[in-house]
Structure formats: structure tokens, C-alpha cells
């Protein structure tokens, strides 16, 4: 039997230790409450691993984890948040080989394509990391009102954001969806259907950087199992959805109306399009904030 993690390595009679792909919830790697798994194959159709098929209960647990972490993460200084985010780039760089191999094996990319996707993912995360302590400066305002008041508008985290990321771009797409959410202090619940092993490897990067537990939860499984819970869960404040708008997104929007949830639908473009600078967007940060305006009288 060849090493499912690394088909090129010689076996020479030694059995490698196969990896169990768990989900990442509340800073812990956990199995599913429901015990269901999905068979993952590599791009040649060979068995790669079993990954967790998250249940609705798993999703609710993930929301609990995200809610618990929200106060600490959104309450952190923006500069410190940016430092934590930058650290992800460091860890990603140090694991280049793993991700290049994974992208080839899971997504069927060539070595060059895999390198390019990884470069973009790291640089994009780097771009969003810097926005943590600049977004408020660029997008907030001091408002010159007519009365003697000091009046200003600042962004705040919207809360717990569910992310249904790109199904076409396993790493650049995931990073492009997740970074703008956490940059402004939200906590995230990500439901990954495509390339789940790669998403779990990315969760390991998050775990190895300085993120407090619960800021990012990564669930693997099938969107169709979880969409109703994502849409109707009272403790999910906003949803970032990538795909082809249709019945699935319409159902999600319908369910979300019950709590006046913020739903943002995005077309999931071709994999190459994810590498373009135009997919690096300040307005995606804007979609993950609430604007608070404060008034205070001036006078003696």
C-alpha cells in the first residue's frame, strides 16, 4: 500500500501513519457528533482519506464556538488583530510544500498552478491582514454636523459570520472569503464541501498561528445538509455565500429574512479568476461590519 499522504514516497515495508481529518471548532480538532464521513479521492479517483460529514448539530456547536470567541476577538486592538493575521502568512510560507502537494493531489493542479495559487493565497491574506487597523481610518468618518456635537462613525464586527466559500478555488477562494470576515473582528463558521482535506490543513495553519480558539471554525461536509441551519440559526448574524445564484441561494435568503440576517451572494468565478487582483476587495470587508455613529455634545 502506498502512502496516501504522499504517493511518491517509497514504502519499503514501513507503514506510514495515516492522518485523520477532523473539523476545527472552538480551537479544537473534533470529530462529528453524527459520526458520518465522506470518502475523499485524489484527482485520479484514488482513495485519499475519510473526511467528516458535518451534521446540523456540528454546525450549531460551531456557532456556539464562534459566539464565545466573538467578544475577545472583536474587542482586541486592531493592530494586534493584524499581527495575528500576518502570522498566518508566516505559517503558510513554512508549509509551502504541503500545500503545493495538496493542491496538485486534490485539485489536480500542475506544480506551477499550485505554486501560483499558494502565492496568491499568502499575498491576499497579507493584504487583508494590513486592513485590520486601517479599515476604520479609511472607511470611518468624523461627521461635521450642524449642531455643537462631536460625531463620528466607526465600523464594528457584525458578529458571527457563516462562510460558504468558493467550490472552485480551494485555497485562494477560501482565503478570499475568510480573511475579510476575521480582519474586522468577526468570528467565522466555514462550511467546506470541495477539497475538505485542504481546508483542514488550512485549519491547522490557523491553529498554529496565534488565533484565539473559536475565531475560525472549519466544518467539512455537504452544503445541502447544513444550509437550512445556516439560514435559520438565530445566532448567525451574516452569511457570505459563493456559488451560482439559484435555488440554493434563494432558499438561504428566504430563511435569513426571519432574523433580518445580512446575506451577501457572490458569483464563484473560474479558478484562474480567483488569482486576479480584482478578487481582493475592500467591499467584502465592508459587508462584514456594522456602522456605529456616536454623538457627544461639545461645550463647557
Amino acid at each position, binding site marked *: 500500500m502506498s502512502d496516501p499522504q504522499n504517493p511518491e514516497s517509497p514504502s519499503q515495508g514501513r507503514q506510514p501513519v495515516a492522518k485523520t481529518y477532523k473539523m476545527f471548532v472552538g480551537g479544537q480538532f473534533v470529530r462529528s457528533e453524527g459520526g458520518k464521513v465522506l470518502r475523499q479521492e485524489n484527482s485520479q479517483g484514488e482513495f485519499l482519506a475519510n473526511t467528516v460529514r458535518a451534521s446540523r448539530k456540528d454546525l450549531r456547536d460551531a456557532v456556539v464556538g464562534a459566539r464565545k470567541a466573538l467578544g475577545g476577538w472583536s474587542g482586541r486592538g486592531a493592530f494586534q488583530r493584524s499581527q495575528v493575521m500576518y502570522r498566518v502568512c508566516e505559517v503558510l510560507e513554512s508549509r509551502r510544500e504541503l500545500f503545493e502537494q495538496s493542491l496538485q493531489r486534490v485539485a489536480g493542479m500542475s506544480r506551477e498552478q499550485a505554486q501560483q495559487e499558494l502565492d496568491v493565497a499568502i499575498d491576499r491574506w497579507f493584504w487583508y491582514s494590513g486592513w485590520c487597523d486601517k479599515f476604520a481610518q479609511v472607511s470611518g468618518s468624523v*461627521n461635521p454636523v*450642524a449642531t455643537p456635537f462631536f460625531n463620528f462613525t466607526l465600523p464594528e464586527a457584525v458578529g458571527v459570520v457563516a462562510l460558504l466559500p468558493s467550490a472552485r478555488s480551494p485555497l485562494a477562494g477560501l482565503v478570499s472569503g475568510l480573511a475579510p470576515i476575521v480582519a474586522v473582528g468577526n468570528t467565522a463558521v466555514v462550511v467546506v464541501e470541495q477539497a475538505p482535506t485542504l481546508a483542514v490543513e488550512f485549519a491547522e495553519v490557523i491553529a498554529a498561528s496565534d488565533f484565539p480558539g473559536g475565531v475560525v471554525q472549519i466544518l467539512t461536509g455537504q452544503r445541502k445538509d447544513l444550509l437550512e441551519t445556516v439560514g435559520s440559526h438565530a445566532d448567525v448574524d451574516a452569511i457570505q455565500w459563493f456559488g451560482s445564484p439559484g435555488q440554493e441561494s434563494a*432558499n438561504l435568503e428566504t430563511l435569513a429574512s426571519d432574523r433580518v440576517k445580512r446575506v451577501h451572494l457572490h458569483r464563484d468565478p473560474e479558478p484562474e479568476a480567483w488569482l486576479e487582483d480584482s478578487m481582493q476587495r475592500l467591499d467584502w470587508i*465592508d459587508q462584514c461590519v456594522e456602522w456605529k455613529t456616536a*454623538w*457627544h455634545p461639545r461645550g463647557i
Partner: protein
Amino acid sequence: MTKESTSAKFPLVHPIEPLSPAASREESGQGVKDLLFGDLWEYAPAPESSEVSGARDHYGNFIEGQFEDGGERFASHNPATEELLFEVSTADEACVDRAVTAARRALPRWSGLPGVERGKFLYRLGRVIQERSRELAVCETLDNGKPIKESRDVDVPLAAAHFLYYAGWADKLTYAFPGAKVAPLGVVGQVIPWNFPLLMAAWKIAPALAAGNTVVLKPAPTTPWTASRLAEILQEIELPPGVVNIVHGADATGRALVGHSGLDKVSFTGSTEVGKEIQRKLAGTGTRLTLELGGKGANVIFEDAPLDQAVEGIVQGIYFNQGQVCCAGSRLLVQESVHDLVLAKLRQRVATLRVGDPMDKNTDVGALNSAEQRDKVQRLSEIGLQEGASMHQLACDLPEKGYFFAPTYFTEVSASHRIAREEIFGPVLTVQTFRTVKEAVDLANNTRYGLSAGVWSDKGSKLFQVAGAMRAGVVWGNSFNQFDPGSPFGGYQESGFGREGGRHGLRPYLEVRS
């Protein structure tokens, strides 16, 4: 609800009588000095004249620059006298369709105008509103029931200021969002409530037009007057036909408008219930949406607050516009150590409020907008009593006709009471106490809404800390119910999404691509 009828039914009703100087001295145990208004002097009537209203018998829907005569008619009444004011044409589906088509036709020319030209139209509109402010204020008060001093000093000047403010944005859109390209969205359907009819029309129309969109506006069926006057002004300033269209009617018209497939965007201000219905209706259509919905704002008074100003802020927060304000400070949270003192001061201040003819320039609290609204306020107040809260109501003579409700506050309120959870949209305040900062924040945030909050403390560091912890889109420090066209306004959670006012208020009317 008069003092007599309620007191007979509910032993927990405490009438708030104007204090005589003698009574005031008796209350001095609280350290509260009486304002000595009491019953010492009577106010002479100071009525504003209704002659300037320029009323017509009938207003039609305003489509492509013309008033249409057709359509089934409904009556608009003065809520303070229940007298007929005029009739209005209802817009049916065909009429709404004509309005949307007109807006679509007008779009290329309007969005293609240089920004500075659009800006000059908006500027002229603001100026004409200023010139005709007296008649607009009179119309607003007659149609809505709000005191003339509020329509004169708040609604109309702010409406003009909104047009003047956004006039200046029309030619600066490329500066509004750094690094981004902007474009108008197209045809916008806007539905507004009855509590600030002209002001809400201005909040909706001004940023939409500045951004290059065209508009179909639906005013509330009980307050169609100032929007119709605005239509006359649009003719006067020769705004290109179809850029703003106004359709009248109730729910059916609203549904026809927001469900029209020719819209690129819907903007709604009103109840959370209807907002959810619209969000559900637009699911899967790709039509953009912003919602400005209900609220249950907390007004938090710390022991180190400037208490006299705080009491003014409490009154401003809940009795302004008869409490029919989505951002009203309807939940008073007082630190336990100053509860008795604040309540004694509040009681005294409420005793000075003058309730009655909205056209009287001395009136503080006018009529509620409709019998339906008055009944709702009354029903919720009775529920408050049934749930065991203690009701304090200004003892005053209410006019025999019209939809009046005396200023009221409830004590002995717990967080689970319906009056502390539901938006009453009337002059009814609930009072709760807290001990610690954390408890205050938890109580304030214990709501599905998130529109407004007030924080009172003379300690700046505490004020900013608590303001930051409030889950609300607008936080007033040592003040309440302040508005400005340059100041973004809008809610968290079930109070809606999107902002109106300021640079942020442009965002919902533009395609912004970074």
C-alpha cells in the same frame, strides 16, 4: 386613556399632577426643586394658521412629472380633529407599473447628467423647501398630528438640509469610496412611514438622486400630503419628468411596488414585521435591499450623569413626536443609586408637558397618527398593567376628538415584560434599574433590535467604553434624538441594514466595485 377611566380599572395607575408650589416644597425631600410652572399660570392659545396649507381637494399619483386623476380614492384625515383633509388616488398595480416604467425611461438621461447638474437640481429643491417651509410645516402637522414646533423646527429644516447636503455629493461620487469605481444602481423603489413623512421622503430621495438613480416613492397612506407638496415643488423646479414618481396607497400598493420586477433596488423604512416580509419577497431576485426598521432603544443613566440634562434627554427620547420614532429611547435604565432622584425629576418634568392641539405653538405632545396607533399604544399599556408594572400618566385633559395619549411611564418593569420588549411606538417609557456597568450593557443589549441607545455620564472614559459596548447603530452620549444629514443612521440586528445620511448613506444607492 383618561386618568379617571384607567384609575378605576387599575389600582396601579399613578396620575402625574402638575405640582403646586406647596406640593413642591413637600417633595423637596428628594432634593428636587420645582420648576414652579405648576398651575400658577395658564398658557394663552398660540395657534398657527392653517390657511397657508394650500390644500387641494384631491391629490393624484405623481407619474412622469404629472398628477394622475384616476384611481380609487381614499381619504386623509387630520388625526388631531378627525376632520377630512383631502382625498388621494390609490395606485393599483397598473399605476405602479407606469411609475416604474417612467422611472426607467428617465434613468439614462438622469444618470448621464454631469453630477454637478444633478447637484444643482437637489440644491434648488432644498432651497425651495426652505422658502416654503411654513406651509410644509403646517401641512405636516395637519396630516400627521405632530406639534407644529417640531414640524417647523425639526422635520422641515432637516428635510431641506438633506437635499442641500446630498446636492454636494452628486459631483463627488468618485471621492466617496477610496479605490473603488461607482455607478448608480438604476430604478429604486422606496417605501416610507408616517412618523416623519417629509423628512423620510428627503432621506430616501436625496441620496438616491445624488447617486444618479431614479425613484418611485410610496408615502404612508395616512400621511400623503407633504410628499404631494414635494411633487408640486418638483414640477416647480422642473426636475426632469420620471426622475421621481410618487404612488399612494396602503399595503397592496406597497406590495405591488416592492415586488415589481423592474426595480434594481428597494429601500424601506417601517416596521420590522413588514421589513422581514420584504426581505423574504426579494429573496432570490437579486434586487438590492436596505431596511430601516423598528427599535427599542435603551437610555442608560449612570449615577455620575448630569441628571438635569439627562431628564431632558429622557423626555426628548420618548415624548418627541409622541414617541412615534423608530429610534426612541423607550427603555430607561437608571443606576439604582440615583433612581429615586431621577424619577422625582422626571415626574416633575412630565407634569409640565402640554398635550393637545398640535397646531398650538406651545404644544409639546400632539396627536398620534391614527386611531389604530392610539389603540395599539393603549392596548400595550393595559398589558403592562396586567403584567404587574406600575403606570404613571400625566393627568391632563385630552381633546375630545383626535387620537391622543397622555405621556406615560412604567415602573416596576422587568426585562421579560412585553412593554419592555416590544416596540410600542408611542409616548410610553419603561423604567428599569441596574447596579453595575456590565448589568447596564447586558440589559441594554437584551433586545432583538439595535437601532439606538443613549448613555449619560460625565466621565468621558466610561461614556466611550459603554457606547462601544452598545449593539446599536446610533449612540447618543449625553443627548438623545439628534439628527443631521451628515450623520449616518441605521440599525444592527433586526433594526435593519444599510445606513442613511452622511457618506455612508450614499453606499446603498451605488454599485461600488473595489
